[in-house]
């Protein structure tokens, strides 16, 4: 009654031949499909800070459009405000947790129409506001007033309306390419037939 060693399992040598072939084949399929998935989900882009990463799916297109044309469009990226910048661990840990939540919500189609900052996001964004606007805040802080969320007053950083559908279609950015060259997704437009 020996516990099978890892090499034995990987070797699969004791199994009938057809099962071994099947298992290797399936493992190959998984790895292959995983690679396809990395490509079509633009997975590598999540390691970087490009704002286009946030519109890999449709939910953030309105946030993107309003950011791009807003006061922060030329000076800050999504990540500058929305992920922590204390150290690499907090940054990538936050990205991983938040990203997993986002992809689950979008896959299941349970997103709300009006987005609110989550409880974990509130201190992150607040710290990032202060990170850049420290100077303007010195006088306010000296007055020892109670700290408020910046966006309680500065409400229109992402435009006056809050809705996934707030921006008109012509202002909405197209999704970044995430297919293979031979697959012209997003380039054909079906016109309504009369």
């Amino acid at each position, binding site marked *: 009654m020996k516990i099978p060693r890892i090499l034995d399992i990987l070797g699969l*040598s004791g199994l009938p031949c057809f099962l071994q072939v099947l298992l290797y084949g399936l493992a190959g399929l*998984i790895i292959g499909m995983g690679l396809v998935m990395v490509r079509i989900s633009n997975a590598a882009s999540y390691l970087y800070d490009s704002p286009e990463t946030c519109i890999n799916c449709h939910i953030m297109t309105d946030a993107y459009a309003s950011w791009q044309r807003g006061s922060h469009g030329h000076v800050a990226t999504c990540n500058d405000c929305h992920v922590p910048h204390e150290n690499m661990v907090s940054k990538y840990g936050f990205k991983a947790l938040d990203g997993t939540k986002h992809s689950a919500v979008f896959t299941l189609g349970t997103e*709300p129409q009006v987005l609110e900052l989550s409880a974990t996001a509130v201190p992150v964004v607040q710290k990032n506001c202060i990170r850049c606007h420290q100077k303007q805040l010195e006088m306010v802080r000296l007055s020892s007033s109670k700290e408020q969320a910046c966006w309680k007053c500065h409400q229109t950083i992402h435009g006056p309306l809050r809705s996934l*559908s707030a921006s008109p279609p012509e202002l909405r950015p197209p999704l970044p390419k995430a297919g293979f060259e031979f697959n012209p997704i997003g380039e054909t437009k079906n016109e309504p037939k009369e």
Partner: protein
Amino acid sequence: MNPKNDSQTLSNKKDALRIPIWLGLLILLICCTAVVVLGLLGVSIMERRWEAQRPAMVHRPIDEWETDNAVWGENYPREYETYLEQENDETKTLYGGSYPRDYLEEDPYQVILFAGYGFSKEYLQARGHVYSVEDVNKTARIKKPFNAATCYTCKSPDVPRLMNEMGITEFYAANFHDLTDQINHPIGCLDCHNPATLTLRVSRPALKEAFESMGKDVSEAGLQDMRSLVCAQCHVEYYFKPEPKNYLSFPWKNGTTVEAMIEYYDDIDFADYVHPISKTRIIKAQHPDYELYSTGIHSYRNVSCSDCHMPYRSEGGVKFSDHHVQSPLLNISNSCAVCHRWSEEEIKTRVEGIQTKVANAMMMSEEALVKAHFDVAAAIQAGVSDEQLAPIRTLLRHGQFCWDYISASNGMGFHSPQESMRILGLALQKAQEARLQTARLLAYKGISEPPKYPDVSTREKAFDVATRFVNDEPIQLLPQGTAGILN
């Protein structure tokens, strides 16, 4: 060497490499599941990326007179699915919702105010658009011999088709019960949309004619205005002109304020019924939702009916209007919260606070109106002449229209809170003025005690009282031994 030992070593070696078959099958199962899950995820990612390309696809061209909403639904599944959500007829808000709330049960005063008229028999809160045909066919208010086909005008997309076939005047003049077989589909797509281009359009002649009467052209309206005007085809104050027979018209010639409408109705001396208690010629208000909304802050800021009642939604890359037309209070986060950055609870509390103030003012004016009807009846019993009562009846006629203008409107005044309170103030002022003047006339007859107001605290009691007056067997309202001292 012992061959037996040899073979044992060999088989031991073999055993060391052999994993049990169940483990192999387990690995196979795990691999399969992983492939399936990854595959589904891949399909999901591709589908969601494709979504933005899909909405423009028309599977089946829609006929010019296609009245079946399900056929439209094949091409526009998101709109149709949300439209069908209107089948829920159990939603409740503080003052509205889609369940058939029984106004007469909740508020027996209305039995007195509508005495002798259909609304004193049955007055239910309307259910969603999908029930329009079913509900109009079974209401107690349209029973033989009452038979105006005009009552169908706002109930079905079959109506524009029939108007096109029969002619508009002929449709209105027809018999309701003769058309029942041809009115099959509830309020739906064709009522607001052009089937070829899906643009919004006005399908009912009454709104076009009302604009013409004000010297305006409804076809000049832009998209944002149309997102309210398609609703204004029905959610307005209207009446049936006697000539041409039962011709549906809006009293907008002098404007769309309550005063302008009263002036209009007085000019043509229109009345829906003569009140059996006070013999007042009453105008029944319908539901002037659009007119009331037009005086409010949301209209001023160019927020349309659809922005709150059918807010835009995004499903992936697809933006569409939520066709589940309902109270925004049932959908606060997607309608109000787009502009108002407060919590859902805060918004709800604020709206209900405004509505409750309107509801309280409404009840005050209602009570004054009920008493005013009985005061006038007492004056009749005391022998006061019709000539002396004429200005009082005019006050009562205008006061009841003002009250009904808000009472019959949807939204308990929220479409325009200040205007609603102003109009209810008018209703109360006119009712009390009528009571004051009646009291003077009664005093002149030597009656200084108040009339003996009958008990109308339940729907049944109120209905019995109303029936006595309808049958011309009025309840004696004058205090004993005071009648006709000066007669």
